């Protein structure tokens, strides 16, 4: 994972909480809908890519591992 994005998630969105790579970030409400929007904006800015709304789905944003896998598909293109 891009370290800046990893930091943004763990420090800014999760307030420094420790989370497992596969932990569900959405179910427990650790990241709410506004948090997801902030993350998407941060990814777009940091990686200079556009994340289309249809990509912002559970499969891509459920956990740190899912986010990392999604970003890999995006940066390989």
């Amino acid at each position: 994972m891009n370290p800046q994005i990893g930091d943004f998630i763990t420090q800014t969105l999760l307030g420094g909480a420790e989370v497992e790579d596969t932990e569900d970030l959405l179910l427990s409400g650790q990241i709410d809908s506004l948090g997801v929007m902030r993350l998407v904006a941060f990814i777009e800015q940091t990686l200079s890519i556009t994340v289309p709304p249809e990509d912002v789905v559970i499969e891509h944003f459920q956990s740190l591992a899912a986010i990392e896998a999604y970003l890999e598909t995006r940066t390989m293109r």
Partner: protein
Amino acid sequence: MFKSLESVIALYGIMKAGCAYVPLDPNAPEDRLKRIVAECRLSGLAIHPATAKRANLFAQGEGSLAVFGAEAEFWETLGARDANVVSLPTPSPTDLAYIMFTSGSTGTPKGIQHTHHSGLAYARMAASLYGLTPDDRLGNHSPFHFDMSTFEVFAGPVAGACSVLIPEAHARLPASLSQLVEAEKLTVWYSVPFAISQLVDHGALAQRNISALRWVIFGGEPIQTRYLRALAKHAPRARFSNSYGPAEVNQCTYFHASAQDIELLEKLPLGGPCPHAELKLVDHDGQDADRGELLVKTEAMMRGYWGSAQADGEVFCEERSGRWYRTGDLVERQPGGELVFLGRLDRQVKLRGHRIELEEVEAVLSELNGVVDACAAVRADQATLCAFVQIEDGDGPSAQSLRAYAGKHLPRYACPSEYIFTDTFPRTASGKIDRAALAKTLEAPCP
């Protein structure tokens, strides 16, 4: 419990057993949950295996609390049990069915008690008002600790309709939410306006087919009609309905908006009374008026607040015509008879549909050592909560400790996102904090 089939089984099982259910928000801070457990003297806790670890830890500290459902086996074998071995009580209509906790201005959450009669009165009215049939598929967006969930949990089953539980994760990701609306062919949608605005702005609706929707119902706070105009393009069959009613009385007014209303109006009126409700507006002296506080009389009214005769006394108004509930909402009757919401008479606010008493936020912050006074206000342009805090010289808490303390005692949505330290508060002539002046300082956009 998070939303799951098990959670619905638990709700109905508890009521079948003659008990009342008290839905707890699994994301609420532990101290708040403990307060509710103690205050209601809860005897049992139904949990889901997915959250068993946290729930068991929680229950350990609560001596008399029996825990059900920690093992997956408990739920898997439920269906195989012989239901006839236990004789179930027949609840009386006046028996308690559920208690929902909401923000209380004293700093302690208030438990709204509904009976089988009041809950069913609402469910039957809603099923009939929206003409629900067994062909309908209702999307349950609201969590169970939020009163709007009784639409899908009670009104759907009353009509024989199918209620589709929307998992928490879907509710947070609009593009997944719209996938679910399409895949489940939902015909009825009911949520706070915020969820609709999210669907429109981030739901990738151009790529979804949500045309099965025939009702889009919203309530909890005013909606901007531009979101409905945008949604109507994707859901051409849908009718739109503005629903209003505090959790204490359930939905008591409705306004079915025509295509023309959505086109021409920026905000929708509350409309007129639901078939099971009587409404009146009274002025300061309690006299009937065309502009004043809205009072409601309905079968779907709560029995009262849990354990607080004083709180009951503040909201119930006993008259020869019966018991009326004071909503605290300032409302005006338009020449055509339609009611329009003007604002609150007290300091309750709504943020993304969540009901928050600003006094509760202030009471919690003031508990912290070193806090002299606190005042909470809403930054209107961003719909966020700010707290102005005056601390003792050189010995007050930091914004970080205030944030941590609020996080422990208030639901997430009621935690201020911004702390502004101040040496002194502007005061009114009578010496009270001049809240209007403070709120004014928030009008300038955030730097």
